[in-house]
């Protein structure tokens, strides 16, 4: 089965986020009010061939933990969906 994987990463709570901080400070100057707790992360999208959803989830979790994030400073959410047949 072919799965679509979305990995969204962000800096862990407590880790300073200089980009998020800079964006947040600039928002009021641009007229955007009421926005707080801006955190900047990355998103990875890829396709994954696996026997079933549980296997796909395990593979995607493994590649995320070992490679896509640095667990010292980053967290990630891994979302798996069955890819639509072409």
């Amino acid at each position: 089965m072919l799965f679509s994987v979305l990995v969204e990463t962000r800096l862990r709570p407590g880790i300073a986020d200089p980009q998020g901080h800079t964006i947040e400070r600039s928002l009021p100057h641009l007229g955007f009010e009421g926005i707080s707790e801006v955190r900047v992360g990355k998103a990875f999208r890829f396709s994954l061939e696996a026997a079933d959803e549980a296997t796909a989830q395990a593979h995607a979790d493994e590649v995320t933990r070992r490679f896509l994030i640095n667990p010292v400073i980053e967290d990630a959410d891994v979302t798996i969906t069955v890819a639509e047949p072409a």
Partner: protein
Amino acid sequence: MATRVGVVLFPGSNCEHDVVEAVRGLGGEAEILWHADKDLHGVDAVVVPGGFAHGDYLRPGAIARFSPIMESVTAFAGDGGPVVGICNGFQVLTEAGLLPGALQKNAGLKFLCAMATLRVETTDSPLTSEAAVGDELRIPINHFEGNYTCDAETLAMLRAEDRVVVRYVDNPNGSVDGIAGVCNEGRNVVGLMPHPERASHALLGSTDGQVMLRSILAAGRVAAG
């Protein structure tokens, strides 16, 4: 016999020849170690130099840590061999799990290329054995992601175990506790963001890096027996 220092070359490293020249200038031998080889050629010490290994894609050091030579560097470090990571090399060693913590974007979100003053905090490391605690060394920095970070427990451990090797006198990048360099539990692996090889000759504006390079050579001599 002169101490032999191996300098790892990844695609995108750019300070390897500076380190080689600086080591040779102090009477050591130096050779380049290609990242795709596993052979350390029997060197007495390893330096992972600065640059942008593998383009710094994904994160600095994230891809370099999977280069074949890192298996050998990890084994060498595990046997007590002296390993020093400079700048991007520090990032590689943290990604490889040889050093605690991580380097993230500078607090001011600016690439910093400037002279920094470092305070030597311990002499029990292959980078500072020839210096004295409290020495202030002028060593240049050249980085965008040099903001050292770690969790509170790790920081407490680093302090308690005297593993902060050098601190910035004026913290330029937001590093936690002003940390410029740390060592591992075995004290044979050190990483620092500043570039001692760029302060190794009067023509470069400072010779304060020589004491660090001499320390690496001394550690190599001890390791060689």
